[in-house]
Every structure is written in structure tokens, then in C-alpha cells.
């Protein structure tokens, strides 16, 4: 049985505000959870896991990480033409990559990415591949060659669903820290081949440029959070605590402070 996991590399500062890792890119936390779930299946069922990722030249380390974590193969869809891809382009390119990989039983995606945050790729991809798609998946309960059983969670209810394969499932949650990878696994992964496909390798329709043109364009970006000129409360701990208590009780006299 074959599982394909879609993984996006995202800039590490979007995940960790204090640089805790050496790398520029890390696995998108939502995809990390999806991948880790796939690897858990592999622990009990005989199956192979392929990771597929569309991304620029600098994301190789992320694919190596996928291999080190336990994925069997890694496919890298890499072409300058993919830059600026929105959901429509991403699902188009991924669907072509997946078709080239060939047969599969299950595709697993994360709910969204921390940079794009659109949460549409999984559903759109299933639509292009014409396979059923289940979102909000919390847990894979059973996995056979004919079907899977999953638990899905909505705001107010939970369902257990049985889905015929092939199918695509979208995990709901995310995970910040991956399971630890032994140095041995990492070394092995670094020596493994990563299959790299450009647009020439994927069987795009002739007019794919027209088909797979980005349909959205960002025209303006403004910071969401307001940076303030805050007031520093100084003095010893007792003094600071007094000011805090006055602020909380609405008794702080800003004009006569300091």
C-alpha cells in the first residue's frame, strides 16, 4: 500500500520566534502532523510513504528531514515557473506530480500552511484527482487496502467515517516539534536520492500556463499588530507591583508617575 504525504517547506521564523533550529526552512507544522500520522501507520501496516513537495531551490533540507523521519521516497517539484503559485497553481502542479508517481492508496495533507493559511489545497487537489476528500480528520483508526476508517471532529460533533480508497484525508491539527531523528537516520537520509521534477518532466497540458496562472494577487500588506511606544515601569519589585495593581484597579495616575 502506498501513502503520499504533501509537505510544504515554510520559513522557520514563521514557526519558531526564537531561532531554535539551524535551518532556514522547516516542515509546515500542519504537514508535520500529517506526516507523523502516516509514519505511525507504517509502524503497524506494510506500506510505503512518499513525500511530495513543491518549492524553490533552497528547501532540500526539508525533504531530507522527511526521509529521516521515516518517509521512503521524496519528490521535489521544483521550477522557477512555479514561483508565486496560489492554490489553483499548487493543486495543479501537485496533481501532475502525484499522477506521475503513479498508483497510490491514500493521500494525506495538512489543514493549511503557516505562510499561506488558505486551507484549500487538500480539497482542491482531491477535486483535480477526482477522489473523495475528508477534512477535519483527527485520527486514522483503521487502514486496509480497501478502505480507511477515520475520526473527524467538527465544532459541535464527531463522526467516524469509512472511506473507500483511493482517497485524500486532511488532518485538522498541527505539531510544532517533530519526533527526534537519530543522527544515523539523518546521515542515511542525506545520501538518499531525492527525485526532482521540473515542469518539463510533468505532463502539463499545452496551455498549462493559462490554466495554472495564479488567480489571486496580493496588492497590499499591512501589519496586523499595532506596535506601541510602551511605558517602562521602573523601580524595585515592590514599586513595580504597586503600579501594576493600580493599573488593574484603574487607579493609576499616569500624569504623576515617574
Amino acid at each position, binding site marked *: 500500500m502506498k501513502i503520499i504525504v504533501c509537505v510544504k517547506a515554510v520559513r522557520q521564523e514563521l514557526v519558531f520566534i526564537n531561532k531554535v533550529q539551524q535551518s532556514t526552512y522547516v516542515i509546515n507544522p500542519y504537514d508535520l502532523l500529517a506526516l507523523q500520522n502516516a509514519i505511525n501507520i507504517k509502524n503497524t501496516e506494510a506500506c510505503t510513504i512518499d513525500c511530495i513537495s513543491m518549492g524553490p531551490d533552497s528547501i532540500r533540507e526539508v525533504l531530507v528531514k522527511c526521509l529521516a523521519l521515516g518517509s521512503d521516497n521524496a519528490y521535489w517539484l521544483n521550477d522557477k515557473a512555479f514561483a508565486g503559485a496560489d492554490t489553483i497553481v499548487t493543486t495543479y502542479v501537485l496533481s501532475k506530480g502525484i499522477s506521475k508517481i503513479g498508483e497510490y492508496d491514500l493521500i494525506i495533507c495538512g489543514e493549511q500552511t503557516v*505562510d499561506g493559511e488558505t*486551507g*484549500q489545497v487538500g*480539497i482542491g487537489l482531491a477535486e483535480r484527482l477526482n477522489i473523495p476528500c475528508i477534512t477535519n480528520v483527527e485520527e486514522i483508526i483503521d487502514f486496509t487496502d480497501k478502505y480507511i476508517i477515520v475520526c473527524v471532529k467538527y465544532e459541535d460533533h464527531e463522526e467516524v467515517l*469509512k472511506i473507500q480508497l483511493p482517497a485524500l484525508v486532511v488532518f485538522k491539527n498541527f505539531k510544532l516539534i517533530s519526533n527526534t531523528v537519530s543522527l544515523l537516520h539523518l546521515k542515511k537520509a542525506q545520501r538518499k536520492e531525492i527525485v526532482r521534477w521540473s515542469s518539463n518532466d510533468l505532463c502539463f497540458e499545452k496551455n498549462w500556463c493559462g490554466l495554472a496562472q495564479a488567480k489571486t494577487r496580493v496588492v497590499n500588506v499591512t501589519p496586523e499588530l499595532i506596535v506601541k511606544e*510602551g*511605558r517602562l*515601569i521602573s523601580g524595585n519589585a515592590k514599586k513595580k507591583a504597586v503600579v501594576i495593581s493600580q*493599573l488593574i484597579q484603574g487607579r493609576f495616575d499616569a500624569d504623576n508617575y515617574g
Partner: protein
Amino acid sequence: MRIIMDNDIWVICDNLKYDSDHSLQLITKAAQLSLKITAICIGKLNSEAMERLFSYGATKVLYSECENDNIRVIASILKQMIISYNPGMIMFLSSSAGKYLASVSSTYFESGLTADCIDIAIDIDNEYVFSRAALNSSVIAKIKCQNSHIRMCTVKRNVFSIILLNMQRKVDIERFEYAKSSISDKKQVIEKLNFLTYNKYVNNDNWMAAKIVFAIGRGVSNKSNVDLIKRIALKCGAEIVGTRAAVEENLIKKSRQVGQSGVNICPNIYVGLGVSGASQHMVGIKNAKMIIAINSDENAPIFQYADYMVVDDLKTILTELNTLF
């Protein structure tokens, strides 16, 4: 002068409750953007709910009967409707069902889709501009559609208000007959084995309206500090919330997590205790009237957003604070 579009806006109503608050919020907003608002109702017949939509700005209801609530069947019907009528812009709810319908339609029609909009406007070029949070909620991006005939968006709940019109518009409900043969009913491939409803109100949500909140961050580091914070909070009528890191460290319950993947609150006073100030957390309290931050690291990002900054060891400050209430 406000620009109003003359092309048709569609609002895809909640298939289980056409006149849900969320649906009405979208209809109200749509009515500010265009003169032609079609509310799409796919599901069971409910004339009362459909007629209600006209009091909020709908100028037409396009209804299609669909006995089951299979979202895949609804998506097929919707596709046929879009092919027949070719609307200019489509607004979906940002619920699980709305997201599903939006993704399927946008892929099928190769149309631009902006997810989780918090605002929609029309610019001087007479084009729709969709606003949404991006880059881990640290920025608001304004997005336009291009290379696509239909513009699509999903809209977050509670970002627009509901306005009841003074004058009800003429009721105009059209029944849409879809080609049953072309419905790719994928029902048989998905089987419901078990269904469990849980009462989402078992957790009392009153705390979300608290005027004062104390936010527990990883810097609180242990249960005895948490207890101390709880004691102080009790004395001054504050509620306890926290960061995701605090949840992962088991310092607080997940239901009290504030931020992008938790809840948003709007207290008068927010006190950050050992909170670093990651954007994913701060967006959840960005409308707080006053932010007080206590952190031992003077370079902690939270100080950029704080009105009052206390650079000190938390335990020391808490001990002092406890004696003052």
C-alpha cells in the same frame, strides 16, 4: 461616493439553516456591495427561512431541493447552478462545509479564491479587494482576483454585522432543477459509522467576556506559580488564559488558549505573564484596551505591543502583587 457593483453577488447559505446568523452577516455585507444579491439555498424546503433572507438584502433566492446533507452532492448542484448563471462574485461561509464548497468550486472553475476574509471592498478600478490575515496572522493582506471570471471568497464569522432592512424586498424564489444524472454521488464511497454530538456549551464561555485577563506563558514554568496567579486573579476579578506553549506544558487547559489556533478575546486589561509575544498569540488580544507585559527578557517581542512594560522576574513580582490585593 460609494461604488456599487452591478454584477450579481451570490451568497451560499448554510445548507442546514439558510437563515443562520453567519449567512445573514454575508447577505448584509453583500447588499452593501451590489444591487443584485442572490442567496443560494441547497437543502430541504424551508420557505420561512428563505423568505427571511429578503429582509436582509437578498433580491433573489435560488433554491434547489436536496434531501440529504451530503456535501459532495451539494457541491455538484452548486457547480450546475454556477454554469447556468455565471455570477460575478460568490461569498461562502468559512465553516467546514463552506470551505469545502469554495475549494471545489474554485478548482473546478479555475477561479481566484480568498479564504477567511475579514473585509471586502471595491476599489477605484471597480474591482473587489478582499482582506485577510496572512503570514501567521502577523499581517493583513489585501488580495485581488486576476485571470478569473468569477471571484470567490470565504468569509469569517462575526466580522460583519446583521442589518435588518426597513423595507422588505420583494420575495423572488426560483427553484433550480438540476440534472440528476450528472451528480457524482460519491456517497457510497463514504459511510458514516458513528455519530457523536457533544454539547459545546458544557464549557462555560462566560470567561471570554472578562474585563481583566491574566495570560499564562511558558515563563510561568510551574504549577505553584500558576496557583499564585490564580489566587491573585480571584482577588481582583480576573480570568486566566494562556499561550499555546502553556497548554503544551500543561499549565492551563486547551480551551483557555488565546490566539490564532485558540480563541480571540477583547478585554479591557490584558496582563502577559512570562509570555514572549508571538504574533500567533498576540492576534488573539489585539483589540485589548491595555496590555501590561511582565517578562524577564527586555528584548521579548511582547514589549513592542505593550502599553506598560515590566522587565523583571515573574515570581518576584507575583509575590509582591499577592500582598497588594
